């Protein structure tokens, strides 16, 4: 695989990594969220290269389209959050950088030096296979994930419910609503 496809791969990889670095370093949370958009889009591009068409589409629909919009909503709606520069206070820059560099060295050396079994990409539709797997081999994880999401959903509702006065009064208000 050479020529244009290689170029596109490296472009997608650079987009992913570059945007991810921006997410971590930008002090303004809105900018960071927008950078996250590009990181997600880059990952979708990588999925295409892995011949995972369904995953790439899901990545765009769910992460770029859904989760990111939710993050932005959360930032916009919590009025204090948009102004406060909460990310990255300037502590421990040097030790953190040293640890990260060592970790990066070890991980990338491992990734390059290990003879991973490489499968050549076959560009065939995967959606039907994924659907069947979810209903057969991966049925248990699929169902467990639904319980997890239910618990998370209830938790989100609980956390976002505004603080009220006495509990009894709160109950009456909710009853009316």
């Amino acid at each position, binding site marked *: 695989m050479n020529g244009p496809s290689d170029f596109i791969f490296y472009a997608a990889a650079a987009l992913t990594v570059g945007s991810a670095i921006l997410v971590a370093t930008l002090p303004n949370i809105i900018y960071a969220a927008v950078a996250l958009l590009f990181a997600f889009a880059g990952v979708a591009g990588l999925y295409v290269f892995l011949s995972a068409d369904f995953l790439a589409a899901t990545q765009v629909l769910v992460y770029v389209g859904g989760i990111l919009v939710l993050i932005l909503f959360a930032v916009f709606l919590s009025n204090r959050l948009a102004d406060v520069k909460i990310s990255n206070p300037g502590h421990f820059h040097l030790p953190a950088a040293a640890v990260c560099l060592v970790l990066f060295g070890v*991980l990338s050396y491992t990734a390059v030096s*290990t003879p991973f079994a490489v499968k050549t990409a076959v560009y065939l539709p995967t959606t039907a296979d994924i659907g069947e797997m979810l209903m057969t081999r*991966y049925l248990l994880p699929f169902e467990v994930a639904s319980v*997890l999401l239910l618990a998370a959903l*209830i*938790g989100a509702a*609980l*956390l976002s419910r505004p*603080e009220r006065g006495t509990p009894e009064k709160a109950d009456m208000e909710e009853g009316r609503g």
Partner: protein
Amino acid sequence: MFLGNLGSLRYFLPEIAVTATILLLVVLHVASNRRTSAAPALLSLLGVGTAILLVGVSPAGGGKSIFEGMAAYDGFAVFFKGLTSLATVVVILMSMDSTELAGRSQAEYYIFLLATLLGMFLLSSATDIVMVYLSLELVSIPSYLLAGYLKGKEDSVEAAMKYVVYGATASGVMIYGFSLLFGLTGSTQIAEIGRSLVAGKATLPMLLAAVMAAVGFGYKIAAVPFHMWSPDVYEGAPTPATAFFSIGPKAAGFAVLVRFYYTVFASPTPGTGIWHLTTSVDWPLLFAVLSALTMTVGNLVAVKQNNVKRLLAYSSIAHAGYMLMGFVLLSSAGIEAILFYLVVYLFMNLGAFYVVVLVGNGTKGEDIADFSGLGSRAPFAAVSLAVFLFALTGIPPFSGFIGKLYLFAEVIHRGVYWLAVVAALNSVVSLYYYARIVKVMFLEEPKDTAALPVPAVTRAMLVLLVAPTLILGVYWEPVARIASNSVKMLAF
């Protein structure tokens, strides 16, 4: 070889009972107008009680791989299902007694509690790394919500926040390790991964995978150096939730730790009850060092604490260190010792937290000073707490001593003398801070002389926790036999 999805259901009844209870709680929550009623608590008791019953009558003949190889049905998993649901029952009763939670919406609390329980069931039986990760999250995410349940209380919010940040990082590192294993072997089944790794020569990625998985599991059992979250979380969370964290997720963490490492990086030598390493990765040494660090840091820092919940947090870190000793020995007797210790630890630790809840209800405080004169204000609770604390120290004739005896005996039997010496020194240190609470309770004048009321039901609960703590100190054979049978049926 694997049971299909439909055929697995009859080995999955406790999980189904817990899931059904969660769904009923949701319906109850939506349908009912009274958010603070005791109905959710009673319903959860019924649900978990049913689950215990179903665990008790679960079909014999373990060693089955169910749900297309996603989970195992064996004595080991059944043991942990029984243990964690028993802990949950005690925690539900404790929560009903606690004034911290009174006046808040109840249903969500029990939904999170039961979702965590379901996660612990699955974590102790998971045999596929997809399932391991998913059930770890099912334990973690509702736990974050439990820690932050006291909305508007700064400590509680801080606890939840720290828990989320540490938890997300730990599981992120763990799943990176899993991805290395998948890359090396092309399988997500831990048994399959174990078989493929035997032939492999790629030492560095295997070592990385072993270390990275240790981060995720170590975080769940609160082993040093992945313990940073636990003191703040234990202090800020509602006390019954703290009690729950100190035994439930910790036990499930040990279950997955044993199953994962003993399957992926080791293999049993038939007929000897000893495992041997299948790769060049010396993870027992890694965990032996972690074990020594965990108990030492836990005990030394506990000495300086003035908040009882924080003190018990560090004490629970130290106990995780003791139990890790059994994990590094690569022998079935070592695992038996862990299982036995977990049973003993369940009673003594939940008991200690129960008294903390009672004192917290009465004095609105959790500092050691709030316990002063408890011996005259609430003699029954004070004597119970003293029993629990001495048991935690590991003094005969209490059950904690027998638990430690099993661990120490096996450590010495396997010849890891330095670890036994470290553990013995640590036990001495722990006596200091446990005895300090006892001293404050009985020898210091109370700040407030009014008697602390202990309702009859609570008294009965304390008796039910004190009794095993005492009885297991003199007659422990049945529990030891159950532990031994559970390990024999550890199948993959």
